[in-house]
């Protein structure tokens, strides 16, 4: 067979979203790849310039549809800095709890999608089943299962409902048992190692040069985790380890993510204990009015109500489930931010596709791309 280009995407089981991987193959060997993103661009940054700070939360949920609350957290941290608001202590812990739950949900979703990529059928359903329990927990305190709209400038929407901690602990116990099962099904299988070992290798030097972050970087042995290196929320007051692996391959990323799941459960348990002991307000007192009238009432279009906020600039960086996400918010004093800039970790990881795909086989593309953990929503924004 001569060399040919094939389009893997935009509609393809491997893509996990809406993007196009153009692959040049010779028989089964990949000679060149060309990732094309942008199919899911919704202009979230631009729309944000026309929305009130709290309304942007609805957009942040949709930025990454598997890690909505992490992006809410990212934006809220930057917005609070820009608006000079200090959230209460308890809100910080609830946010951290939410982000860790989101990490569990996101990694379970990744697990489900990844095993599908290497041809495992049933763990897909196991991952989705156990993610559902986490979503149930989310629903019990945010009211949403996928788009939570939970965080607000100056705190969070509401406190945890009574009985939440008990349920959350039971779910944690259940999940820890299941993680053992996941490992038996994947890394306990010889075929899994034959498929995934030494696949998609990006060494630490290359990761740093290409800007790759998140589990991909940690799988190369670099213990870089913003939760440790640049603590936000209450991460400096909980105990956890940064999961790393040395192999820098698909198996390494699998090992890192499975370990992160366990560490997340560890953080969740500590956060639940703290929240049990420390009741308090979850919304700051001195907050710009969040609801109200950014738009004119019906019949009086164009009649904008003016309100002034103190000017400021906000920057935040969090360890999102996929990697390091950054946000930059400029507040020029109006009701809406002057500019919102988001940096997606997956965009960077995905752009480097040529460095970890070329030379492998067509059959290796789904496991490698699956191990990157693609969320096209945040790639294209």
């Amino acid at each position: 067979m001569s060399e040919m280009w094939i389009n893997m995407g935009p509609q393809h089981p491997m893509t996990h979203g809406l993007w196009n991987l153009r692959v040049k193959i010779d028989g089964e060997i990949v000679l060149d790849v060309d990732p094309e993103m942008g199919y899911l661009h919704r202009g979230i940054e631009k729309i944000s310039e026309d929305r009130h700070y709290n309304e942007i939360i609805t957009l942040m949920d949709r930025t990454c549809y598997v890690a909505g609350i992490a992006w809410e957290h990212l934006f809220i941290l930057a917005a609070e800095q820009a608006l000079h608001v200090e959230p209460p202590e308890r809100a910080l812990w609830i946010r951290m709890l939410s982000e860790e739950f989101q990490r569990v949900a996101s990694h379970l979703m990744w697990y489900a999608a990844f095993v599908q990529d290497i041809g495992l059928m049933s763990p897909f359903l196991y991952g989705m089943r156990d993610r559902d329990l986490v979503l149930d927990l989310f629903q019990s305190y945010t009211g949403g299962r996928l788009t939570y709209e939970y965080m607000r400038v100056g705190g969070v929407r509401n406190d945890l409902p009574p009985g939440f901690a008990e349920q959350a602990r039971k779910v944690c116990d259940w999940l820890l048992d299941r993680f053992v099962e996941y490992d038996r099904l994947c890394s306990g299988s010889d075929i899994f190692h034959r498929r995934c070992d030494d696949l998609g290798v990006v060494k630490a030097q290359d990761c740093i040069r290409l800007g790759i972050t998140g589990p991909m970087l940690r799988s190369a042995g670099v213990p870089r985790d913003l939760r440790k290196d640049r603590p936000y929320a209450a991460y400096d007051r909980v105990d956890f380890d940064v999961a790393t692996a040395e192999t820098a391959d698909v198996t390494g990323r699998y090992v890192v993510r499975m370990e992160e799941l366990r560490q997340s459960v560890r953080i969740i348990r500590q956060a639940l204990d703290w929240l049990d002991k420390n009741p308090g307000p979850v919304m700051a007192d001195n907050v710009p009015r969040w609801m109200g009238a950014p738009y004119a009432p019906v019949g009086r279009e164009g009649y904008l109500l003016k309100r002034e906020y103190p000017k400021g600039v906000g920057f935040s960086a969090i360890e999102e489930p996929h990697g390091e996400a950054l946000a930059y918010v400029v507040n020029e004093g109006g009701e809406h931010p002057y500019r919102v800039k988001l940096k997606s970790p997956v965009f960077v990881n995905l752009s480097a596709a040529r460095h970890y795909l070329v030379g492998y086989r067509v059959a290796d593309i789904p496991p490698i791309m699956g191990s990157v953990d693609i969320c096209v929503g945040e790639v294209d924004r």
Partner: protein
Amino acid sequence: MAPLSLYGVANTLVSTLLLHLAAVLPAPLSTLASNSGLITALSVLLFGAILLGASLLNTILLIWFERKMLGRFMDRRGAMHVGYAGLLQNFADGLKLFRKHTFKPRDADGLGFFSAPTAYMVTSIVMFGILPISTGWNSGSLPLSLLLALVVFSFAPLFIFLGAWSSANKYSLIGGMRSAAQMIAYEVPILLAVVAVILLSGSFDLSTIVAEQRNYWFWGPLFLALLVFVAGMLAEMERIPFDLPEAEAELVEGWNTEYGGMLFAFFMLADYARALVGSYLIVLLFLGGWTMPGWVPAPLTNFPLAGILWFQVKTYLVFGVFIWVRASLPRVRTDQLLRVGWMRMIPLALLSIVLAALVVLAKCLPVFGCVPSVGG
């Protein structure tokens, strides 16, 4: 009471019907109705129709079985709402596919594109006529039925490649190429494993092979051959550890990406017909076919159609193992399958031939006091 035979039943039915007709009809027609040639022809037709219908029904039942089993492996239920526990769901699916528009991609080659699913379907269901299900329930005693079965069974990759090539789709083409490459890797070990069976039973006739398993089933002495044969069959049926030609993750649907509607249904039904046939072959060659071991109480094996019943039970158990494997193992890569085929399965199959020869020799020992069934 003579054992029931499908052809006998068909023959009785037709001749009784024609006799009654002959009594009623006027003269020239009544002589025609009592013509023995006509009776034979109609009996054969009826026999074929019953066999085809029953086999296809069995195939559809097998699909239902897989859906339910796979569902339980995945902590879900499978089809639930059409018929009792979703028994009729596959008919509903078939009806839906039947109503769909049959289309051909613009650049596809019409002849190849449309003939491939048809030929794939035909070669798959012809197998039901070759394989005996129970004594008397096959299309006659063919002295080389095992060989014929294997020949017809291994046609499929040809048609897969034909369909893939004529689809004018790169994914289909890669899938077809993988199918062709993998055929070479697993056909040889399968045939070598079968050689061991032939050595032990001394016959190419499936009925005889089953009859030879009266005393002991072949899976004991030929365990290695069974392993090789099952692995080969997994590849032949394109089921999950070896389903590379239609590897969903990278090749969309592999060689049948471009097929839709009834053509896709043909492929799907033929795939499961092949899965059923593969399970049949394993039961026939290694698990004693329709015979049951002596310790099974007589009332369980003596009633009419007991052979068919036990045969089906064994078949579904074998297929259950396939489903189990599908539910718990990932897919291997093409080069790995080829390596397994050439470097592991062929030596194992050769070893099993040696073992079979040793068993045959052991049977000649005066201790056992029996005559080897293979000459020389």
